[in-house]
């Protein structure tokens, strides 16, 4: 409850109000998308230890689920978002056997899966269904203010989910599984089921983000919404802030994505260099994230 009042409400309120004072709404929108994605990575990596290197697959599935509903069935956007999220869920269900793999193998297989979905979606033989490589162009539903508002709502839902995870019996179980799966099962936890639920939740979050992204962007190519950079960014942001916490991924996005945009706008010529070096430094000197540093200084963060 404290987290809801101190973190969720102010953050959501800030993003709801910022558009009135700052006019680069898309930048704000992207901040929201990345906070949502970083929290989605947090749910699966932070709480179960599985690093989803193909996380963007769910984002893309959401974007395409949304778009195809709009294109083929002229569905209203809010309904299409539900379908987009369902598409991501369906993909996550199909991929549950990957949980039989450990460590790097899971990550690589997940990456391969997301690329496979991209190859399918972008295939010209499916042009009649997905528009293949020619990309999606949604007209008639373009409504940035409403899409932005929806994104804020998704942000609120995501944060609420993470707060729930951290403070519920279920979250405790996930944490236990991550620490020691065998002990967790001896505590009576159905390890496989709980992991899959976390996985589905994490996919759902990405699917929602992808849907609303498709709505806001309205013109995009398959490689736009399946770009591996979404995955990398979300992971790096979550890690930088500190996983398995509520505040970590938020701090990560605000600081790192903030720097990203500042560097990109001020010194674009060294953009990639600075960013790459920053990531290296982060892993070497702050592997447990900013939150661990704050805790070392005696600041308790949720």
């Amino acid at each position: 409850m404290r987290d809801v009042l101190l973190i969720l409400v102010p953050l959501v309120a800030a993003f709801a109000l910022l558009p009135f004072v700052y006019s680069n709404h898309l930048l704000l929108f992207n901040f929201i998308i990345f906070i949502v994605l970083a929290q989605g990575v947090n749910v699966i990596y932070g709480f179960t230890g599985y690093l989803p290197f193909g996380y963007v697959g769910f984002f893309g599935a959401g974007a395409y689920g949304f778009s195809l509903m709009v294109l083929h069935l002229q569905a209203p956007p809010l309904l299409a978002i539900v379908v987009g999220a369902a598409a991501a869920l369906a993909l996550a269900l199909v991929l549950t056997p990957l949980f039989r793999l450990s460590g790097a193998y899971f990550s690589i297989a997940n990456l391969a899966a997301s690329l496979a979905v991209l190859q399918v979606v972008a295939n010209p033989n499916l042009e009649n269904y997905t528009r293949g490589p020619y990309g999606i162009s949604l007209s008639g539903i373009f409504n940035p203010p409403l899409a932005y508002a929806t994104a804020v709502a998704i942000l609120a839902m995501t944060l609420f989910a993470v707060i729930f995870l951290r403070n519920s019996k279920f979250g405790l179980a996930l944490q236990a599984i991550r620490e020691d799966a065998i002990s967790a099962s001896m505590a009576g936890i159905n390890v496989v089921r709980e992991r899959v639920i976390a996985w589905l939740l994490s996919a759902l979050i990405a699917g929602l983000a992808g849907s609303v992204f498709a709505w806001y962007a309205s013109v995009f190519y398959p490689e736009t919404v399946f770009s591996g950079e979404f995955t990398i960014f979300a992971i790096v942001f979550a890690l930088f802030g500190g996983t398995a916490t509520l505040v970590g991924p938020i701090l990560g996005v605000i600081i790192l994505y903030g720097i990203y945009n500042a560097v990109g706008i001020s010194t674009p010529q060294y953009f990639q260099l600075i960013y790459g070096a920053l990531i290296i430094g982060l892993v070497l000197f702050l592997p447990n994230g900013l939150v661990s540093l704050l805790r070392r200084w005696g600041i308790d963060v949720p």
Partner: protein
Amino acid sequence: MLTYTLLAGLLFGLYFTLIGLGLNLVFGVMRIVNLAHGDFLMLGAFLAFWLFSLFAINPIPTIPIAFLVFLLLGFPLYYLLVPRLLRAKDPEMLSFILFFGLSQVIQALATILWGTSERSIPGGQLGRAIAAILSFVTGRTIENGPIEILGQSFPAAWVASGIASGIGVLLVYWYLYRTKLGYLTRAVMVSRDEAVASGIDVDRISAIAFGFGLGLAAVAGVFAPFLLGSITPAMGAEVTITSFAVIVIGSLGNPLGTLLGGLVYGISYMFMQSYYSSWANLLPYLLLIAVLLLRPNGLLGRQARRA
């Protein structure tokens, strides 16, 4: 058409074996994922390109140069990055991110230095050297041009990379199984803790393996202008992902597995390209997932990789 597809797959697969070898070695010894592998290949390719365009050095002599330069580069890079990474809580996972950062830095520097355009080396260059070598070996005059295998003609560069890859596999095999450093390396692969306890200087062994991995990537890079058409600073990421598929299909830590993985990948890719060309790029990913789920240890694997 069938024979040609099969042979082309074989040669192409051998090339991907060469690409995968170094990545496999690094993962096997350090249990870290070098996401910048493809970027080192890119650097090797640019080395060959510059040696050729500035000093007219043929790509064939560039091979040992590239190997040595990157072997040596491997040491400082190892000591700078890896020991610290290995002390972290989950090095395998963190390595993904660390080496992604390295990949970004390499790509950025390469772009700043060399621009973004495609670069290549005219195909005849490699053919000329090979023709000269073959003429010398056989004592007959061999014309520069495509090389005939079983009545099918292939670019000389393909055959050359196939040979280089074969040598690479043998070299890694010889290193691992016939030299003292090799069995110390394998000891580290089996158990890093036990290796430390046995008095093995694990960092030195790992640094050598790391350098070896980069060296092999660079050698594969020398052939890249011929086998991948052209090179750019941004080419690395895709190469890395495909070579992952190759080594996982084979099995991690085993050079023969990489050979098998490369061949399976190369041949099936070529068949896809022949018969379902627009789906060809889906193949490595499906193959990888299928192998992981059906035979989680790779086609030649023994070690457990299940959760």
